[in-house]
C-alpha cells in the first residue's frame, strides 16, 4: 500500500541552486530567506515527490507549493517550450480564493515578467485561469482555446471539467495538482474530492504530482493517504511544520465564583467590553448562530454609547452580500469587533486581528488553533487568544484544550468512508464522461482512500440504483445509467444526463431556508434554517441580525414576524448546531479527573492538589481553586466519574430520571444513549425521553432498567440496535433528504428551474416512507443510516468504550440520589434532546383515548 515518509529540511543553498536566475532574483527581492515550510516543501515539489505540508495559518504554504512550479514554467517559457495544456491544477474548497492567489501567484508572475523585460529576456506568456461555478461562458470558451497553464478551481468544478470531453484533453498531462485547505475536507466534500482526484489520475497519461496544504491537523498519515490515494506504487512525504509564532493564551472567568454569583452574564459582557476596548480589532467566536446574534444584541444594549457601526455579526444565515461587506470592512480595519459562529474559522484573509476571544469551549484543540490562527496574521507576531467561560464544566474543558494546545496534542479527524451517495453522483459523472468496464471502475474507485474498503455488494447496489433497478414497480423512475450485465459495462443514459449532472453537482447539503418577513408588509429581513423553525412555536421571540422578532405565523416557506419587540428572546439554545467535544479532548479530561480523584483518595492536602492543578493545566491559582472546589463537591457527594468510572444516578422528581456521567463527547454519548434508551424502551414498550451532552446523558420515563440495558449492549450488537433506534427519528429523515439530494434522487435544478427543497413543501418523511416501502436496503437509505451512526454519532469510539467496559477497564457505579450530583446537574438543566419512539402510533392513540375517557368521565361525575 501507499508508502509514507517524512520530508527533510533542505539547505537554502540547495534550493537556490535549482531556481532560474529570474525567479531567484525575484524571490530575494521580496524575502530574506526561505520560510520553514519552504525549506521542507520547495525541493520536494521540484523533485516531483507527492508532499503533504502541514503548517499553521498565516504561514507561507501557498507560495511553497507554487514556487517550484513557477520556476519550472519560467524555464520552459524562456526556451519557448510551453505547450497549450494545463501544467498545474490548484484546487481549494474555498470559493473566495482570489486574494490568496493574487498575492502568491499573479503578483510573483507579474514581477518576474517585469524583471525579464528589464533584462531583455523574452518569456512566453504563462497563463493563469480561474474557474468556479460563477465563471461565465465567454471566459470558459476562452480557456478552452488558450488553455491556462495554471488552472485554479474548486472540487466541484474540477469534477465538472472532468466530465467535459473537450477539456479532458487538456488535463491528460497535468504535472502538478495542489489541494489546499485539506483540513476543511474531513467531510463528504472531501470524500467527493478524493474520488475526483482518482478520476483525474485515471485520465492522466503521467502521474500528476500531489501537493497537499493543511493547517494543523492529525493524523497526518491518514491525511497524506487521502491526498495520494491507496495503491501499491504510490509514495508520499509529510512535512510537519508547527507554530513558530509565540502564543499568549489564557482562560478567563467573568466572576470569582461561577456558582454563587448571579451576575455571570452581566459580568461577562463587562469583561467582553473591556477586552474589546483594550484592543484594536477583536474577533469573537460563539459556536452557534443564535449565540452570535445574542452577543451582538447584548453588547449594543448594555453599552449603547460604545457600539454603533463598528460591531457586526457574521454567520451563515445572513445574506451573502451582507457577509461579504462585513469581511470587506474587516479587511479595511473599519470594525472594532466581529462576532461570528464558526463562519470565520476558515480561509480568507481577514486583515489585522489582535485578539481572538472564544466564548465557550471550542470543543477541540485543532479548532482552537485554527481560530487562534486568525490573530496576528503576519508571520512573527504573537498570537493572542482568550477563552471566556460561563460555567464550571466549560472552565475545565477550556483548561484542558489550552493544555492540549500548549503541549501540541492535536485531536484526530476522520474522513467518512464508503459514502454511497457521493459514490452515486461520481459514478454518474464518470459514466457521462465515457463508458466504463465495471471491474475497472471499481478498481479506480478503490484507489481513493475513502473507498479503499468498498465492498462489492455496496458497489453493485449503487449500480442497481443508478440503472433504475429499484424502481421496477413504477416506470417513472428515471434511470441515470445503463448497465449491461453481460458485457459488464456501464454508460450514461438519456439526453438530459449531462445537464442534470452539471446543475446538481456537489455535496453541501441543501438545508432549506425559510424567509423571515415582516407582517403585514411582507418586507424580507433574512433567512433562518428550517431546523431552527422546527424548534420554535407561535409567540416565541428570537434574534436575527441583531434585532428581536416575534413569531406570528408561517405561510408556505415564509415566516411572518413582528419587529420591535421588547420581550427577552425565548428561544432556547440550538442543539442541532452544537459542536461536539472531540473524543481525544474528552479522554484528556477523563485522565485529569482520574488524577484529581486519586489525589483526593490519597488524602493529599488542598495545597498539594492546587499546585498540581496549576502545573498540569497551566492556570493561575484562582482558576485552579474553582476547579478544585467543583471536584471536591462532587467527590464528597458521590464519586468522580473518570477514565475508569461511569456513574449512574437514579433521581426522582416529577419524572424518574437516570443520569449517566460518561465523558466521551456528545457523538459517542449520542450512540450509547440511544442504544441504551432503545433497549430500555423495548422492555416497557414506552417512549423514553433523553438528553445528551458531551459529559453524559439522561433518561426520563416510566420503567428504566439501566443496568440490564448496559449488560445487554455490546460491541457486537450496538450497530443493529442503533439502526433500529434511529429508524423513526427526524434526524434520519433529515439526513436521508441530504443523501437523496447528493445521490441525485432529489434533483434541485430540473429542466432549467431551480427549486429549493423546502419550496416543494415536501417533508423528508414522505421521501423516507416511500423509500422504506421500496427496500430496507436501498443504498441511499443505508447511506443515511451510516451517516447518522458514523458521522453524526461516533459508533466506532462508542464500541471502543463498550469494549473497555467489557474488559473491566471502566466500572459502572450506580446510586440513588436525592439531588443530582454537581457534575450531572447540567445534564438535566439543558433539557431533552429527543424522544425515542418505541410505542406504536396506534397504541399511543388508544392509550390517549383511554386517558381522555377517564377525564371526560370524571368531569361528568
Amino acid at each position, binding site marked *: 500500500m501507499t508508502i509514507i515518509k517524512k520530508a527533510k529540511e533542505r539547505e537554502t543553498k540547495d534550493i537556490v541552486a535549482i531556481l532560474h536566475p529570474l525567479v531567484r532574483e525575484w524571490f530575494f527581492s521580496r524575502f530574506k530567506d526561505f520560510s520553514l515550510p519552504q525549506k521542507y516543501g520547495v525541493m520536494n515539489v521540484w523533485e516531483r515527490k507527492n508532499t503533504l505540508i502541514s503548517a499553521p495559518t498565516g504561514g507561507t504554504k501557498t507560495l511553497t507549493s507554487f514556487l517550484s512550479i513557477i520556476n519550472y514554467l519560467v524555464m520552459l517559457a524562456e526556451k519557448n517550450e510551453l505547450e497549450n495544456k494545463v501544467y498545474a491544477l490548484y484546487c481549494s474548497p474555498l470559493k473566495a480564493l482570489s486574494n490568496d492567489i493574487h498575492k502568491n501567484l499573479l503578483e510573483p508572475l507579474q514581477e518576474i515578467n517585469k524583471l525579464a523585460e528589464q533584462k531583455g529576456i523574452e518569456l512566453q506568456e504563462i497563463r493563469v485561469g480561474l474557474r468556479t461555478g460563477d465563471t461565465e461562458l465567454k471566459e470558459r470558451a476562452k480557456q478552452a482555446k488558450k488553455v491556462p497553464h495554471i488552472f485554479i478551481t474548486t472540487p466541484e468544478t474540477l469534477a465538472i471539467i472532468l466530465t467535459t470531453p473537450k477539456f479532458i484533453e487538456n488535463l491528460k498531462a497535468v504535472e502538478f495538482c495542489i489541494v489546499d485547505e485539506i483540513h476543511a475536507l474531513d467531510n463528504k466534500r472531501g470524500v467527493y474530492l478524493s474520488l475526483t482526484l482518482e478520476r483525474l489520475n485515471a485520465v492522466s497519461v503521467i502521474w500528476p504530482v500531489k501537493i497537499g496544504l493543511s493547517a494543523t491537523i492529525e493524523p497526518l498519515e491518514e491525511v497524506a493517504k487521502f491526498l495520494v490515494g491507496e495503491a501499491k506504487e504510490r509514495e508520499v512525504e509529510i512535512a510537519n511544520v508547527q507554530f513558530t509564532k509565540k502564543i499568549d493564551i489564557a482562560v478567563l472567568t467573568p466572576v470569582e465564583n461561577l456558582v454563587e454569583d448571579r451576575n455571570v452574564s452581566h459580568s461577562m459582557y463587562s469583561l467582553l467590553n473591556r477586552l474589546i476596548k483594550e484592543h484594536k480589532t477583536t474577533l469573537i467566536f460563539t459556536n452557534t448562530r443564535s449565540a452570535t446574534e445574542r452577543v451582538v444584541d447584548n453588547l449594543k444594549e448594555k453599552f449603547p454609547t460604545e457600539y454603533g457601526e463598528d460591531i457586526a455579526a457574521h454567520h451563515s444565515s445572513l445574506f451573502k452580500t451582507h457577509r461579504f461587506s462585513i469581511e470587506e470592512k474587516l479587511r479595511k480595519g473599519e470594525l472594532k469587533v466581529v462576532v461570528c459562529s464558526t463562519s470565520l474559522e476558515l480561509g480568507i484573509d481577514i486583515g489585522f486581528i489582535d485578539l481572538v476571544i472564544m466564548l465557550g469551549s471550542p470543543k477541540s484543540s485543532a479548532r482552537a488553533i485554527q481560530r487562534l490562527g486568525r490573530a496576528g496574521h503576519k508571520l512573527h507576531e504573537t498570537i493572542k487568544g482568550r477563552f471566556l467561560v460561563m460555567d464550571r464544566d466549560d472552565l475545565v474543558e477550556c483548561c484542558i484544550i489550552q493544555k492540549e494546545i500548549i503541549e501540541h496534542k492535536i485531536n484526530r479527524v476522520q474522513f467518512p468512508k464508503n459514502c454511497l451517495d457521493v459514490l452515486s453522483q461520481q459514478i454518474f459523472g464518470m459514466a457521462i464522461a465515457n463508458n466504463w468496464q465495471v471491474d475497472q471502475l471499481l478498481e479506480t474507485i478503490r484507489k481513493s482512500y475513502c473507498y479503499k474498503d468498498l465492498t462489492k455488494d455496496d458497489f453493485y447496489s449503487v449500480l442497481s440504483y443508478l440503472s433504475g433497478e429499484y*424502481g421496477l*414497480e*413504477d416506470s*417513472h*423512475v*428515471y434511470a441515470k445509467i445503463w448497465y449491461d450485465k453481460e458485457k459488464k459495462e456501464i454508460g450514461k443514459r438519456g439526453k438530459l444526463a449531462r445537464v442534470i449532472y452539471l446543475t446538481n453537482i456537489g455535496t453541501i447539503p441543501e438545508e432549506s431556508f425559510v424567509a423571515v418577513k415582516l407582517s403585514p408588509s411582507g418586507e424580507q429581513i433574512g433567512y433562518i434554517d428550517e431546523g431552527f423553525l422546527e424548534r420554535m412555536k*407561535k409567540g416565541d421571540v428570537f434574534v436575527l441580525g441583531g434585532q428581536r422578532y416575534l413569531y*406570528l*405565523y*408561517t*405561510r408556505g416557506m415564509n415566516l*411572518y414576524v413582528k419587529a420591535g419587540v421588547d420581550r427577552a428572546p425565548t428561544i432556547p439554545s440550538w442543539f442541532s448546531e452544537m459542536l461536539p467535544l472531540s473524543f481525544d479532548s474528552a479522554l484528556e479530561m477523563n485522565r485529569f479527573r482520574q488524577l484529581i480523584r486519586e489525589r483526593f483518595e490519597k488524602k493529599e492536602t488542598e495545597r498539594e492538589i492546587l499546585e498540581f492543578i496549576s502545573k498540569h493545566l497551566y492556570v493561575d491559582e484562582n482558576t485552579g481553586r474553582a476547579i478544585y472546589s467543583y471536584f471536591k463537591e462532587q467527590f464528597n457527594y458521590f464519586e468522580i466519574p473518570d477514565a475508569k468510572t461511569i456513574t449512574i444516578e437514579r433521581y426522582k422528581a416529577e*419524572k424518574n430520571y437516570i443520569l449517566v456521567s460518561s465523558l466521551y463527547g456528545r457523538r459517542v454519548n449520542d450512540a450509547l444513549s440511544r442504544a441504551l434508551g432503545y433497549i430500555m424502551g423495548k422492555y416497557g414498550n414506552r*417512549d423514553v*425521553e433523553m438528553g445528551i451532552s458531551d459529559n453524559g446523558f439522561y433518561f*426520563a420515563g416510566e420503567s428504566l432498567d439501566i443496568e440490564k440495558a448496559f449488560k445487554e449492549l455490546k460491541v457486537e450488537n450496538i450497530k443493529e440496535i442503533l439502526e433500529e433506534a434511529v429508524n423513526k427519528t427526524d434526524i434520519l429523515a433529515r439526513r436521508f433528504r441530504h443523501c*437523496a439530494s447528493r445521490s*441525485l*434522487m*432529489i*434533483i*434541485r*435544478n*430540473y429542466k432549467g428551474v431551480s*427549486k429549493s427543497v423546502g*419550496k*416543494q413543501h*415536501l417533508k423528508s418523511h*414522505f*421521501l423516507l416512507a*416511500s*423509500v422504506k*416501502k*421500496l427496500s430496507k436496503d436501498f443504498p441511499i437509505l443505508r447511506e443515511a443510516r451510516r451517516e447518522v451512526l458514523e458521522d453524526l454519532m461516533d459508533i466506532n469510539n462508542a464500541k471502543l468504550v463498550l469494549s473497555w467496559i467489557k474488559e473491566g477497564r471502566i466500572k459502572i457505579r450506580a446510586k440513588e440520589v436525592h439531588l443530582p450530583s454537581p457534575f450531572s446537574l447540567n445534564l438535566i438543566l439543558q433539557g*431533552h434532546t429527543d*424522544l425515542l*419512539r418505541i410505542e406504536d*402510533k*396506534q397504541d*399511543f*392513540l*388508544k392509550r*390517549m*383515548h383511554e*386517558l*381522555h375517557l377517564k377525564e*371526560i368521565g370524571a368531569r361528568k361525575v
Partner: protein
Amino acid sequence: MKEQKRYIFIGKTLFFPKEKIWVIGDLHLGFEKMLRDSGLDIPLNQFKYVQEEIEKTYLNIKTKFGKPEKIILLGDIKHHYSFEAEEKKEVEKLLRLLKEYVEEQNIIFIRGNHEKNDKYGKYIDYYNVKDIAFVHGDREFLEIYDKKINLIVMGHLHPSVTLRDEMKVKNEKYKCFLVGRYKKKDFIVVPSFLNFTEGVSANEMNEMMDNNFSIIPNSELSNFEVFICGQIGEESLDFGKLKSLE
C-alpha cells in the same frame, strides 16, 4: 335492537346506511406529479395506495351494510388548479374503479377550490339528498341552508389533531372528523383521503387559515366534537370537544 346510527365513520370516509351513500373527502390526485415536477426522482405510488384503501373500505362497507348506491366525492379530487394530463389519467382511473361499485350517474363530483376550471363538465357546487347537503366547504350556497336541510357534510379543511402525552414530549398527529352545530345546522367535516399529509392540526390552527378559508369560522370549530379516524374495521375514537384538546 339498537337504533341504527344515521351515519358511520369508516376509516377516513363517511357512510349513511339508510341512504346507502358513501362520502369520500379531498383526494388531491396529482400531488405526486407536483412533487415529481419539482425534481423528486422516486416513486411514491400515490394512486396505488389510494386504490388499495378505497378497495378495503368498500369491502368493509359491503360486508357490514350492503353495497353503497351512491358515492359522493367532496371536491379537490385533483391537486392542480389547471388540468394536467397526468391528473386526468388518474381521475379517469379513479372513475373506472368507482364504476365497479356503482353506476356512473351515481358518482357525484362536488366542485372544490382546486376545480375552478372544469373542462370535464362533471362537477357540481353542492348536492342535496333529503335533509342532507354535501358541499366542498370553501364557498357558501343559499341552497344548503334551505329549511329542509338539517345536516351539512363538507371536506376542504383536512382536519387533524395533535395528541400530546403527559410528559408533553411526544406529539402525534391524526386525521379526524369534526362534528358540530353552526347556523342552526348540523355539520360533519370529513378528513382528506390523501395519505401523504395530515394537514394542519385543528387544535394548533394558526393564522395560516384565516376566517374566510372555509364556511365555518375557526372560533366555531372549537366547539366541534373530534372523532379520530380508526383503522378500517375499527371504530373511530371520540375525543370530546376540540377546545378540550387545546
